[in-house]
C-alpha cells in the first residue's frame, strides 16, 4: 500500500507544482502580493471566459486554426515535392542553391507581414503568406536532408532486385525520409503557430491574436490572460496531434532497428 502511494506520488510530483502555481495566482492578488488590477486572480479569468461564452471563444479559435491549416497545408504541398526533387533528383542544383535558400530562410517571417500587406493588400492573403513562409523552410530543408540521409546501399539493393524508379521512391525513399520530414513539420507547425499569433496582433479582424490585441487596446486585462491561456492550450493540442500522427504513421523504424539489433 505504501509502495503504491509512493508510486502515485512519484507520478504526480510534477502536478503539485502546477497546482501550487495556480493556487498562488489565485491567492496573491487577494492578499495584496500583486495588484489585482494588473494580475487578476485566476477565478476572475474563468469568470471572464464564461462571460465571453464558449461559442465566441470557439469561433476565434476556429478562425485561427483555419488560417494555420490552409497556410501550413499549402506550404507542405509545395515544400515536400521541392524537397524531394532538390534532394533526390538534382543534388548539384541543391548545392548551388543552398546558400540562397539559407539566406531566404533567415528572413524573420513576422517582419515580412507588412511587405505582404503591401504586395497582396490587406486581408487574409498576407496572413496565409506569413504562415506559408514560416512553415515552408523547415519542411523543405528537412525533406532534403531526409532524402539525402537515405542509405545508398538500400537504393542500390532495391534496384538490383529489379525495382523501378517509382517503386524505389515509394518503398525506399519515402519511408527512409519520413521521420526527418516529421521533425521538420513539427518545427514548421510550432513556428507558424507562433507567427500566426504575431501577425494576427498586427493586422486582422478575428482570431486568437486579434482577441489579445483587441482586449489590450480596450484594457480588458483578464481577457488578455484568458487569451494567453487559450493560445497555450491550443498550441499544445496542435503539437500533440502532430506527435500522435508521427507515432502512428512511423511504426516501422523502431521495429526495424530492434530486428537489426
Amino acid at each position, binding site marked *: 500500500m505504501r509502495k503504491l502511494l509512493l508510486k502515485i506520488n512519484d507520478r504526480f510530483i510534477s502536478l503539485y507544482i502546477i497546482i501550487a*502555481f495556480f493556487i498562488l495566482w489565485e491567492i496573491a492578488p487577494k492578499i495584496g502580493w500583486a495588484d489585482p488590477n494588473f494580475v487578476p486572480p485566476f477565478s476572475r479569468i474563468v469568470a471572464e471566459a464564461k462571460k465571453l461564452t464558449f461559442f465566441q471563444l470557439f469561433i476565434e479559435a476556429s478562425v485561427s486554426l483555419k488560417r494555420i491549416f490552409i497556410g501550413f497545408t499549402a506550404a507542405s504541398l509545395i515544400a515536400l515535392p521541392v524537397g524531394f526533387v532538390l534532394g533526390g533528383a538534382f543534388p548539384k542544383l541543391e548545392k548551388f542553391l543552398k546558400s540562397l535558400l539559407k539566406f531566404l530562410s533567415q528572413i524573420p517571417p513576422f517582419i515580412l507581414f*507588412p511587405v505582404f500587406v503591401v504586395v497582396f493588400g490587406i486581408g487574409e492573403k498576407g496572413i496565409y503568406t506569413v504562415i506559408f513562409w514560416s512553415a515552408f523552410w523547415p519542411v523543405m530543408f528537412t525533406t532534403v536532408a531526409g532524402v539525402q540521409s537515405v542509405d545508398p546501399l538500400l537504393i542500390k539493393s532495391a534496384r538490383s532486385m529489379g525495382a523501378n524508379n517509382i517503386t524505389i521512391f515509394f518503398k525506399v525513399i519515402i519511408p527512409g525520409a519520413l521521420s526527418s520530414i516529421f521533425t521538420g513539420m513539427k518545427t514548421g507547425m510550432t513556428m507558424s503557430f507562433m507567427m500566426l*499569433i504575431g501577425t494576427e496582433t498586427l493586422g486582422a479582424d478575428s482570431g486568437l491574436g486579434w482577441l489579445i490585441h483587441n482586449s489590450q487596446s480596450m484594457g480588458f486585462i483578464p481577457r488578455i490572460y484568458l487569451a494567453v491561456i487559450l493560445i*497555450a492550450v491550443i498550441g499544445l493540442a496542435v*503539437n500533440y496531434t502532430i506527435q500522435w500522427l508521427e507515432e502512428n504513421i512511423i511504426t516501422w523504424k523502431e521495429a526495424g532497428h530492434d530486428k537489426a539489433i
Partner: protein
Amino acid sequence: MIKQYSYTKLARENGETLKKFNMVPIINFFKKVNSVLYGSIAIILFFLLWEVASTYGLLPSSVIPPPTKVIAALATSVKSGELIYHMRISLFRALWGFLLAAVISIPMGFLLGTFFKTFEKALLPFLRMLEKLNPFALFPVFMILFGIGNLEKIAIIFWVAQWPLLFNTIAGTRSIEPNMIKAARSMGANKKVLFFKVILPAAVPGIFTGVKIAAQVSFFMIVASEMAGSSQGLGWYYLSCSQSYHVPLMYGIILFITVLSVIINLLFTRLEKHFLVWKETSFQHN
C-alpha cells in the same frame, strides 16, 4: 589487388609531398574561398534577376522596388545615422536580456541538473509548460507588468532566451558519464573539484548549443517586440517606414535585419563549433 595497392601508395606519397611543403592549409583555404564564391553565385544571380524583373516591369516596381533602389534607400538611412542609432538600441536591449538570462539560467541549469534532481523532476514539466507559452501572446502581459520601454524589452528577451539556456544546460549536465563522476569521487575529489574538473568541462558543449539558440531567438524577438509596441529600435523603425509607405526602405531594413541575423548566427555557430571540437579531441585523447 595490385592496382588498388598502387593507388593507395600513390595517395600516400601525394599526401607526404603535400605535408612536406606544408600545402594543406593553403589548399584548405582555397577550398573555403571556392565554396564561399560558389555559394554566393546563387545569391548574386537572385538579386540580378530581381533587378532585371523589376526594372523591365515584370514585377510591379511600386511594391517590389529593384535592389539598387533598396540599397540606395538603405545607404541614405545609414548616412543620416538613423539606422545605426536604432540598431544600437535594439542590440543593446537584446544584449542585456541575453546576458541577464545567461547569468541566471546557466547556474540554475547546473543546480537543477546536478544537485537538486528530485526538485528538477518536479519542476521540469512546469517549466516546459511555461516555455510553450507563445511569446507573442505574452507581449501585452509584459507591457502590463513592466510598462512600455527598455525594461519591458529586456524582460521579454530574458524570458525567451532563458529557456534554451536552461534546458540545454540541464541536458549538458545530464550527458556526463556517471562513471566519470564515480571515478573522480573514488579518487577523493570533493564537490568543488568534481564540479570544476568533471561536470563543467563535460557540460560546456551543451551550454554553447543553448547560447547559440538563445542568441538567435533574442535577436529575432527584440525586432518582433519592438514592432508590437515601442518608440525606438529596428522593429519600430521598420514599422514606421511601412506606415509612411516608404517601400524601398522597408525592403532595405528587412535586408539589413536578415544580414545581421546571419552574422549573429555565423558568430555563434563558430563559437559552438569551437567548444564541440574541443570536446571531441579531449575524448580522442582519452
